[in-house]
């Protein structure tokens, strides 16, 4: 565990132990708040203290029977799935174009396409609120889907671009020289190689939209109340343990996504012959 060379002095060993202890504490800091709220969602009483008086599923029952939470879940899924699909198409096409050799002003175009990720989301949200008001898009699903697509597409561009780095263009040329039309080349050669990046990008896009609350606060009405919006008002007004039940389910979803993305990343690196 210490992983030190044999010539290390005692002071060095001590230092290494101290470092490992510090890191253990940082890891604890990272993981403990997330772990700490999970058991609280099974608390039989509406308190947030340990030890818990008893276990129950009442907050999960509450979540799955309360129309407000169910509607919020439904809105969130509709918006996130549509925004993901849109940003997949737009983002993948753009990443493929940007990967071509000597693309003019590549750095500038890329910086522009990524900027929705960098610009403070309140600015984007207020701007969209003004703009969509003129177009009658406020308080519509379509407006939120457009807004979330703009916020989510940078993630697709980045992940697909990352899989295209080190992509051997001669594979495409080989396919073309053997007589395959461009679409076949794309389907049979490019697509399988960039697919892991596309799926990671899709997951990032999905989570970006599924998690987004600021834009929704500005441009949505109670009819399009999403899950994060519902949680936000829940925390602000009266924090109920149903929120911890929702949070627990979201953490488990995040864990599943994390594992998927990690497996995909390894597969992609193996496919492209990169050894880690």
């Amino acid at each position, binding site marked *: 565990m210490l992983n030190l060379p044999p010539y290390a002095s005692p002071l060095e060993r001590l230092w290494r132990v101290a470092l490992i202890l510090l890191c253990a504490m940082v890891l604890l800091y990272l993981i403990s708040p*997330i772990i*700490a709220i999970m058991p609280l969602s099974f608390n039989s009483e509406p308190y947030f203290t340990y030890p818990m008086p008893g276990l129950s599923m009442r907050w999960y029952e509450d979540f799955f029977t309360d129309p407000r939470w169910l509607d919020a879940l439904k809105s969130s899924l509709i918006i996130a799935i549509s925004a993901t699909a849109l940003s997949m198409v737009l983002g993948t096409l753009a990443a493929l174009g940007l990967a071509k050799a000597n693309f003019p002003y590549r750095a500038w175009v890329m910086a522009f396409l990524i900027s929705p990720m960098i610009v*403070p989301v309140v600015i984007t949200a*207020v701007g969209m*609120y003004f703009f969509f008001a003129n177009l009658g898009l406020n308080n519509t699903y379509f407006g939120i889907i457009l807004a979330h697509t703009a916020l989510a*597409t940078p*993630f697709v561009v980045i992940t697909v671009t990352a899989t295209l780095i080190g992509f051997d263009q001669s594979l495409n040329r080989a396919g073309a020289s053997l007589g395959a039309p461009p679409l076949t080349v794309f389907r049979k050669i490019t697509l399988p190689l960039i697919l892991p990046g596309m799926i990671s990008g899709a997951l990032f896009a999905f989570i970006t939209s599924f998690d987004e609350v600021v834009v929704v606060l500005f441009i949505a009405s109670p009819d399009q109340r999403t899950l994060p919006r519902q949680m936000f008002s829940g925390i602000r007004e009266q924090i109920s343990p149903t929120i911890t039940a929702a949070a627990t389910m979201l953490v488990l979803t995040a864990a599943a996504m994390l594992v998927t993305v990690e497996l995909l990343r390894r597969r992609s690196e193996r496919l492209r012959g990169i050894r880690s």
Partner: protein
Amino acid sequence: MSVTTFDLVQSSLKARLRRAERMQRLRAGLLVLPLFLFVLLVFLVPIVILMTRAVDNPEIADNLPRTIEALAEWDGTDLPGEPVFAAFAEDLRETQKTKNTGLVGKRLNYEISGARSKSLQAGRAAEKMESGPYKEAFLALDPLWGKTETWSAIKRAGSPTTSFYLLKAVDLQWSPAGEIEQVPPDQRLFVDIFIRTLGISTLVTLATLLLGFPLAYILATLPPRHSNILLIFVLLPFWTSLLVRTTAWVVVLQTEGPINNLLLWLGLTDEPLQLIFSRFGTVVAMTHIQLPFTLLPIYSVMKTISPSYVRAARSLGAGPFRAFWTVYFPQTVPGIAAGCLLTFILCLGYYITPALVGGPSDQMISYFVALYTNRELNWGQASALGAVLLCATLILYAVYNRLVGIDKMKLG
């Protein structure tokens, strides 16, 4: 003869090659075009609208057109004459009909506090004024209309664009004499908020670096089978919804929450500490959320540093700390710069986490952009604050682009 054929073939080959390259570039451009147009329309246009709102000034120019026209002749030294007051009365009768007097009053109120109610009063009075002299009628109504400053404020506010909101966003204003000056001390607000935003962002960035650097080092030097498991601890919070993490901190930091629980149980404190709605809670929660953003670039740089450099330094007689400091650390600087810059940029725009975990004195600039949009309905001020925040972000983004390169940005 043969030479010319060769030249011909060569030049046509060159031309064909150039054409093929042009076609390829065109095709690449067409692939990028849909997203480019989408971002332009759905993202850039709203931001440009927001920016124009910061200087847009329609309230007075649209609703008091006659007054503004009459004031154009006025030199600003003495009280304006009867024609201005007559125009004012006529404009007010019009705004009473269109129900815009409140709007005019609200706009004047930004320049002269208390002008809102007096404008509404003047509007009601103007309806009853049948004929002149209007000047005396207004002077009798309220001393506000007898001050030259009032009329120069109306004249200033009557221009279709204004620097009023942008100046206000940095606590400046036009003096009655037409010079830029600081607003009175009791009205200074925004410079403090910008300083607070920068301060919290700096603190969080430093905290993520102090906690993230050692962890990245351990992760990069451990054998992969250990480090991959530990990396999950870093990536799981990264993937978890920001709202879930904020909720977690709200629950954990509560007065009745697990941390106070633990501290009381351990006997470290006699009464629960105020952890939530404080600067401490805000920085702790933001650091937790930003830590992976700082750590991951450092980690990926550290993974590429060969251990043989440090070994060489050691074999040449350097002590462990000197070898680390002079050989290892300088190689990690690009990762540190990338991670810290990204974290700092993202911190500047934080809204949700301070809003839920922080107290009133921990709110950052984004909170005030939202407040002025939703609650105060002062869209000019919201836009001006947004414009200043956007400028700061874009400058740092340009620096990031130059130092790190946007295509080097990695996720997870």
